[in-house]
Each structure stands twice: as structure tokens, then as C-alpha cells.
């Protein structure tokens, strides 16, 4: 009879760590020498219908599975926020009139199911009832394609888009995150809910397996028209706990992790094989001042609240100096629409003067914020309240659970974020603050005459110089009425293995196409 003696036990104990830490994937090793890529994310999309998942969580995954007709070249500028348009599934496009665009498709592009992409798929993608119409399947699509009138196939590789009114942004809309081309045959056979779980696109990676809220595994689609993908597979793994994501990156389980707060940068930078890569997002965090609220109905009080915020101090303290203070709702990615020389003022003396002029006598001002919805929101609120006290405002912070509580009666100051959906004021400021926005619809901002007149004129205008002038009028009106106060453009920080050559973009897309992902040889 063999007994387990002490020596055997110790040998076994020594072997345990080796066994436990073995990468069981070796069993699946194939002839494919490309490495797999494992991305640990804070959350995963619930579905993979790409136009349904218009969020940072969703688009990280769908960007690798689908293509748009036109590709916005984010990586064409050093900051990852380029706005030049490049051919993608479309080889060219031509404006026939301010309301008509003819798009020529790339021949020979394959879907994951082997079908060739043709004009029928494009027409099906943009059909009335999916992204546009009174009550489309995907209501979010209306914000992007509500302007479309017809989409018709001229021949197998040519499509005509017409809009109800002149739309200078149509090409940008076709490059946006609502515009992924879907496979008509598959979509029709499985319906929107079937497609949401088993999508078929033309992107560099195709779905292998999806377990809701756990992981989404993609395999390389080697017939991809831009060439073979650089990784043999990409797995997005949901790891909600930050410590687990960071530990997994450092120990080598993950190649890339998302949603890193600024205070973790130094930890990652201290490691040998990993680093933090950050990008300033096409998004601003801002305060909102409610005209229905006590005190904040007075424009001078709103202006004083904005003028007394030292944004540089916030950025240096909370974002390690890496976030950016924008020049109002006015971003370099607007290209020729960008207005040079505008700055957001920090002028406590002027703020005090405005408060005096408004007859402010120490009435309370309450700043409502959710603790974790926006990164650093609560810290920022506490610092801002102290800045307001410096100029004599009797301010305090009230922590709320959700937007309902924030916007409940009696609101004075809340917070919000505005994204640049399309690189133009009509795709950002006008969407966030225009007549269809929550602020105007709910009467939180009513002094809008000048702003709305200029915005409506901008919608119909095609001349670049006149458009720029109208944008200036809009911006002047917003800054003067001060329905809010911009704070900063926040950072998105990723933790990445140094061997993974990949650049982030200012939008939430995670570009893993062959031209933005490669792996250095291990020593």
C-alpha cells in the first residue's frame, strides 16, 4: 500500500501553483501564429445590433464587427480626434445637389456569412422603419437619419441618398456610429432580436460566442477586405471591479483594460510590461443652471457661477493636468468651423460684481450631483463649491442617485456631459442644447431666441463662411445666457501591455483594424 508521505505532499504542494497558473489555452493551440487579444472591460453590451448599442460599452465591440460606408480618420491627427473622411465600404461619393448624395460601393467586400455586400444591403440598413420614420425599431437612429428622405439602389454598387432638406452633414452621418452596414439576408431571416445575438457584418472580426454580461469572443475574419486581422481572436471580458482589471493586466491575463481612473496611472507606469495610454475625449463635463430654479433664473447669477470656477485648478488636481479646457462648445475637430481665440473666462472679481448687481444676499445655492456617474464628479463638486464660497456664494453639494432626483423641482445647479457626435456644431451643441434637447423641452432654458434662430439658419445653410458666422452667433448666445458652464474634456485612460501597438481615439471606438493593431515580438 502506498501512503502519502511528507515528501510526496511537499512535491505536490510545489506543483500546485504551476498547475493552477497554467494557461489552459495551450490545448487549443492551432497553426495560427497570430496572438489572441484579451480586453477586460467594465461592462459589455447586452446586444450586438450595432445601432442599438450607441454607448461607450457597445461601440467598443461593434466597431470590430461592422464597417461604415465612409470612415472618419480619427487617427489622422496626433490627438486621435481627426475628422477627415476616407473611403471605406464606399470607394467614392459625390454631391449631386445639397439634398442628394451618390455613393459608389467597393466591389468584392464579403460579409461574415460569405455574402457579397451590395447596394441592397445598404438600402436595407437605412430603410424607413429601422433608423428613421415615426417609430423606428431603433429610435436613437432618428437623431442621425431623421433628415433622410429616400435611399435607393441605382445599380449593384451605387446608392442614392436624398434628404428632406439640404444636409451638409450627411457624409459625416454616414461615418457615424449609427451607420454600420448590416447583412440584409441574415437580418431578414432572424429579425432584429435574432440579429442582436447573432450579428453578421463585414468587419475584421466575427462573432464566435457571446455570453451575456460575461464575455464576447470574436474570431478573425480572414476574408476582411482591408487584409487579415492582426489577432487570431479578440475576447472582450466583463470585469466590473477595477482592482481585478488592473491585477489581471499586470499579471498578464489581459492585454488591454479600460475605464482606468486618473489616480491609477502612476501604478501602471511603475510596471515593467504595461503602461497607461490616455486620450482626451470628444465630450465635455459641464454644470447646468436651471432657469426654473430659485436664483439661477437670473442670468447674472448664472454668469457669476461660471466666472468663479478655476478650471485649471480642477484639471491639475483631479486629472493630473491631462484633461483639456475647451474653448467653449468649440473644438478643433470642427475643422474650418473652429473659432480661434475663444476662451472660457475665470474672473472672480467680475463674478463678485455681477452678484452685487443682482442683489445677491447669501441665499443658498445647491449643486446636485450623482457620486459616480461622471468620473471625479463628486470631487469636482466639492472643489467648485469652495470656489463659489470664495466669491461669497452660499453654496453646498447635494448627492443624488439619478437624473430624476437631480432634475426634480427646486433644481439650481446640476451636471451633465455633452458628446460631439459629429464634428460640427449641428452634431454637438445643437443636439445637446437645441429646441429638441431636454433643457429646452422642459423649460430649464427658455432665453433661447438668438440661439435658436442662428441654429435653424445653420441647419439650412451650406456656405462655409456663413455657417461659421452663424455658429459664432450661437456660441455667443449660449455663453451670454449661460444655461450651463463647461468644465473640461475628460480623459479616457486605458491600461495596455507595451507589446500591443494600438492607439485610442477621442471617441469610444476601439479600433482593432489591421492598420491600428500589431504585436511586438516577445524577446
Amino acid at each position, binding site marked *: 500500500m502506498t501512503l502519502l508521505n511528507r515528501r510526496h505532499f511537499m512535491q505536490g504542494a510545489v506543483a500546485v501553483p504551476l498547475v493552477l497558473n497554467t494557461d489552459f489555452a495551450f490545448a487549443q493551440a492551432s497553426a495560427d501564429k497570430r496572438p489572441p487579444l484579451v480586453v477586460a472591460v467594465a461592462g459589455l453590451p447586452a446586444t450586438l445590433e450595432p445601432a442599438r448599442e450607441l454607448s461607450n460599452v457597445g461601440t467598443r465591440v461593434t466597431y470590430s464587427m461592422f464597417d461604415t460606408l465612409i470612415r472618419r480618420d480619427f487617427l489622422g491627427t496626433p490627438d486621435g480626434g481627426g475628422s477627415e473622411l476616407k473611403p471605406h465600404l464606399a470607394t467614392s461619393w459625390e454631391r449631386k445637389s445639397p439634398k442628394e448624395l451618390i455613393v459608389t460601393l467597393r466591389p468584392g467586400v464579403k460579409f461574415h456569412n460569405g455574402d457579397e455586400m451590395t447596394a441592397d444591403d445598404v438600402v436595407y440598413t437605412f430603410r424607413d422603419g429601422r433608423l428613421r420614420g415615426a417609430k423606428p425599431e431603433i429610435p436613437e437612429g432618428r437623431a442621425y437619419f431623421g433628415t433622410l428622405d429616400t435611399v435607393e439602389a441605382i445599380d449593384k454598387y451605387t446608392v442614392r441618398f436624398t434628404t428632406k432638406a439640404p444636409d451638409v452633414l450627411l457624409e459625416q452621418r454616414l461615418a457615424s456610429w449609427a451607420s454600420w452596414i448590416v447583412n440584409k439576408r441574415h437580418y431578414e431571416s432572424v429579425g432584429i432580436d435574432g440579429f442582436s445575438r447573432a450579428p453578421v457584418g463585414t468587419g475584421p472580426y466575427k462573432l464566435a460566442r457571446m455570453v451575456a454580461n460575461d464575455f464576447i469572443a470574436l474570431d478573425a475574419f480572414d476574408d476582411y477586405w482591408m487584409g487579415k486581422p492582426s489577432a487570431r481572436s479578440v475576447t472582450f471580458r466583463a470585469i466590473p471591479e477595477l482592482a481585478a482589471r488592473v491585477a489581471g493586466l499586470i499579471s498578464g491575463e489581459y492585454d488591454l483594460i479600460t475605464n482606468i481612473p486618473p489616480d491609477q496611472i502612476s501604478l501602471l507606469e511603475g510596471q515593467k510590461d504595461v503602461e497607461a495610454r490616455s486620450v482626451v475625449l470628444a465630450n465635455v463635463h459641464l454644470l447646468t443652471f436651471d432657469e426654473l430654479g430659485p436664483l439661477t433664473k437670473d442670468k447674472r447669477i448664472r454668469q457669476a457661477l461660471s466666472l468663479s470656477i478655476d478650471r485649471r485648478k480642477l484639471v491639475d488636481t483631479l486629472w493630473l493636468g491631462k484633461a483639456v479646457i475647451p474653448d467653449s462648445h468649440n473644438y478643433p475637430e470642427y475643422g474650418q468651423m473652429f473659432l480661434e481665440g475663444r476662451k472660457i473666462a475665470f474672473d472672480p472679481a467680475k463674478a463678485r460684481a455681477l452678484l452685487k448687481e443682482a442683489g445677491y444676499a447669501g441665499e443658498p445655492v445647491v449643486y446636485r450631483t450623482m457620486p459616480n456617474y461622471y468620473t471625479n464628479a463628486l470631487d469636482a463638486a466639492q472643489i467648485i463649491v469652495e470656489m463659489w464660497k470664495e466669491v461669497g456664494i452660499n453654496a453646498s453639494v447635494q448627492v443624488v442617485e439619478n437624473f430624476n432626483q437631480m432634475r426634480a423641482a427646486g433644481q439650481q445647479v446640476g451636471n451633465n456631459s455633452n458628446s460631439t457626435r459629429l464634428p460640427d456644431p449641428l452634431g454637438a451643441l445643437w443636439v445637446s442644447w437645441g429646441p429638441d434637447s*431636454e433643457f429646452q423641452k422642459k423649460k430649464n432654458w427658455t432665453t433661447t431666441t438668438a440661439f435658436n434662430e442662428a441654429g435653424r439658419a445653420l441647419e439650412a445653410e451650406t456656405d462655409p463662411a456663413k455657417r461659421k458666422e452663424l455658429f459664432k452667433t450661437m456660441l455667443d448666445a449660449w455663453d451670454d445666457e449661460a444655461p450651463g458652464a463647461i468644465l473640461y474634456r475628460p480623459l479616457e485612460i486605458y491600461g495596455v501591455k507595451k507589446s500591443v501597438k494600438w492607439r485610442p481615439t477621442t471617441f469610444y471606438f476601439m479600433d482593432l483594424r489591421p492598420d491600428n493593431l500589431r504585436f511586438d515580438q516577445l524577446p
Partner: protein
Amino acid sequence: MSRLKGFLWFLALRLARATATLAICVTIVFVVLRSAGDPLASLLPDDTPPDVVEIYRERFGLDQSIWQQYLGYLQSVAHGDFGRSFVHHRDALAVVWERVPATLELGGLALIAAVLIGVPLGVLATFGRNTWVDRAAMSAAVFGYSLPNFFLAILLILWLSLSLRLLPSAGSDLPQHLIMPIIVLGAPAAAKIARFTRTSMVEVIGQPFMRAAAAKGVPTRPRLIGHAFPNAAIPVVTFLGFEIGAMIGGGVVTETIFAWPGLGRLLVQAVGQRDLAVVQTIVLMIAATMVCANLLVDLAYGWLDPRVRVGLRGTGK
């Protein structure tokens, strides 16, 4: 015959109580979730245009009055339809059901581990009552019980994954992913079981039949294992019944930190996103589990303690 009648009464009363408990749970969850604000405000991004919000409100039936929604929901549940997830765009029951195996696997293994550690520890403490063995065992139990689960979880990740690189940090695809969650979920349960076992054993040891066994000359070990332990087991079994529910509830933190794809993690996400149908289904499922566990505990009493069986028979007469 009268014995069967008595049992059927017992069962009918239990089932009526269970149904009332479930109905109260559903109502409370329904009211609390809706009084916490408009679910669409949590479900949709902050800059969603109001007209899009209204389309979703109508599509999800949130434009109806709260009474219409409540009665409609009760009617659907009675027909086995637990509603549709706002987030996953499919049946809430299917979304929840997918998570049950993972939770049962983790919760079951953690409970087994807790019993295997807690019961011997409690018995050991009784054997060495008021000696260093007792004190060491009970100190370990207090430590295991009082360490917050989120703290222990992060500590284990930093120690076993980051420093020693012995175990993967989080996930569910490898068997070793189970080890740390089992420790975190099982440690407080093992601690409670150890204390319960010790207390119960000490109480039984003082009973007259134990003195009789000692007087009869039964040696200490068989006396404790054969005579004391079966009698001391009843409170421990009661406790285990509650612990089954606690394993699911306690899994909320553990599953989230270790990215374990179970019910607890789904519950956190669903509450955060105000995915009403999913939250209601999970709460209903947890409540049903607790009710069933209590029923099983009641039945187990009869098996463990003949006096309970006699008592039951007596009620039928």
C-alpha cells in the same frame, strides 16, 4: 388516513403562506423600483433626445398608470410571463435563468466548503472546550465572520493574483477561477456554522441523556459524535436553510468583484440600469428559494428528530 390529512393541511398552510410571501415581495419590489424615479432616466444615456425617450416609454408600457402596470404584471406572472428585459430585449426569465447554474455552482460549492470546514471546527472547539484549541478555532471563526467580503476579495486578488501570480484575478472560464470566490463566500458561512455547532454541542452536552451515556461508560469520542452531534445538528440545519438564501444574496458583492456570471452580478447590473422585469424576476426567484429552503428545513426536522414526527402525527389525531 388522519395522519395524511394532517400532513396535507400542514402542506396547504405552508403553500398558502409561501404564495402570500411571494406576492408581498413582488409588490414591494414593484413599488420601490418605481418610486426610485423614471427607469428610463437610468436606462438611456444622459443626452437622449426627449422624443426618443417617449418612444421607449410607450414601447415598454411605462406610459400606463402604475396600477395598470401592476395589474398587468400580476396577470402576466400568473401566466408564467415574467416580462421582457428593457436592456437585453428578450424574456426576463430567460436572462435570469441563464445565470442560475453559475450561482448554484458557486453557492453550492461555497456552502459545501463552509460545512466541511465549519462543522469540524465547531466539533473540535467542543472537544477542546476552554483550551487553546477552542480559543484558536473560535478566533478563526470571528475573523472569518467579521472580515468584510469586499475587503477579503480585494486582498485575495492583490495577494494571490498580483503578488504571487498563483490564481487568475477574475472570470469564470477556468476551474481555478472558483477558488477565490469560494473562499470569500464560504469564509463567513464557515465561521457562523462553527460557532453554531459549538454552541449547540455545548448545550447538548449538558443534557441528562449525555450524563446517562457517560455513566454507562460510553467513551468521550463516540459520546460526542454518536450522541451529542445528531441532537446538536438541528439548529445547524435551520441555519443552513437561511444560508442558502444568503449565498445568493451574498453573491452580489463576490460575483461582482470576481466577475462571476451569476444572479448576484446580474441583480447589481439590473438595479443600476432599472431593468425592472429582470430585478423583479430575480427577487421572486430568491424569495421562492428562501421559501423552499424553509420548507425543506421543516421536513428535515422530522427526519433528524423523531419527536417532530411524533408531534406531526399527534396534530392529525
